[in-house]
């Protein structure tokens, strides 16, 4: 599984305490992290209404912008309606991209939903 990480305006974010920002970072603006990874739709029924609902609910917990894309389009992960337009059948690969201050955590949370197949078979909830 590939995880790509890129940060805008704060390559070594975290190493610099407040007031010692690396050169080039816009002063006053929060550093915007962009992370992405690939997920595979493992549910036998595909990304149907229930997982789309769970996905949008999870995405809405985070400040970051969450987007899903396939070869044809890119959609807002916080909208069930948009997610359903992907018509992602079982086995489909999608790229999730999170952009914002909590991008990394958001991507992890979304990744685990896919890793657990949205609890489709074993009911873990």
């Amino acid at each position, binding site marked *: 599984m590939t995880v790509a990480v890129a940060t805008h305006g704060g390559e070594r974010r975290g190493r610099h305490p407040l007031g010692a920002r690396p050169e080039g970072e816009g002063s006053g603006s929060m550093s915007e992290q962009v992370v992405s990874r690939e997920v595979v739709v493992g549910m*036998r029924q*595909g990304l149907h209404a229930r997982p*789309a609902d*769970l996905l949008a609910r999870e995405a809405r917990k985070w400040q970051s912008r969450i987007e899903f894309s396939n070869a044809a389009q890119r959609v807002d992960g916080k909208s*069930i*309606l948009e997610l359903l*337009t992907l*018509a992602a*059948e079982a086995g489909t690969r999608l790229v999730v991209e999170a952009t914002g201050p909590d991008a990394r955590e958001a991507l992890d949370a979304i990744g685990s939903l896919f890793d657990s197949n949205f609890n489709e078979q074993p009911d873990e909830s």
Partner: protein
Amino acid sequence: MKFSDFVAVDAIRSHIDADSKEGVIREMAQSLVDAGSIAAGDLDGIVKAIMKREDLGSTGIGRGVAVPHTKHPSVRRLVGTVAVSHDGVDFKSLDGEPVQLFFLLVSPPDRPGDHLRALENISRQLRDDSFCKQLKSAKGPLEIQHLLEEADSHGVAS
């Protein structure tokens, strides 16, 4: 998939009276019975199955739209209908909006792809705000039917 591939035009309702989730679902399933799309003897079973699915999570998908659905062995192909409630019904949607526009789907258990493509068609078309508004304010079933036909003819076939 197009609307005409699964919407039973005789079952379209432009003024639904029910004010509860189950009421709406029952009224729509009854309209499918009246249109001859599902058997009267399956009505209760189908309503129960759709409600059971709703218990797993609302099928309200935002923008005042819901897609109550179930798989049922009594249907050979995907059948569905459209209904509008002018007052709106609380469907516990993610965005908290009451639902005015309903697409009810009953699909054969072995055709998950068709179900997915029907959901895709519905959600893709409803991204168009004016289409959504026109459906919600349609004066009669025939107007809804025409709006769906128009959307089918513009839409990208998939």
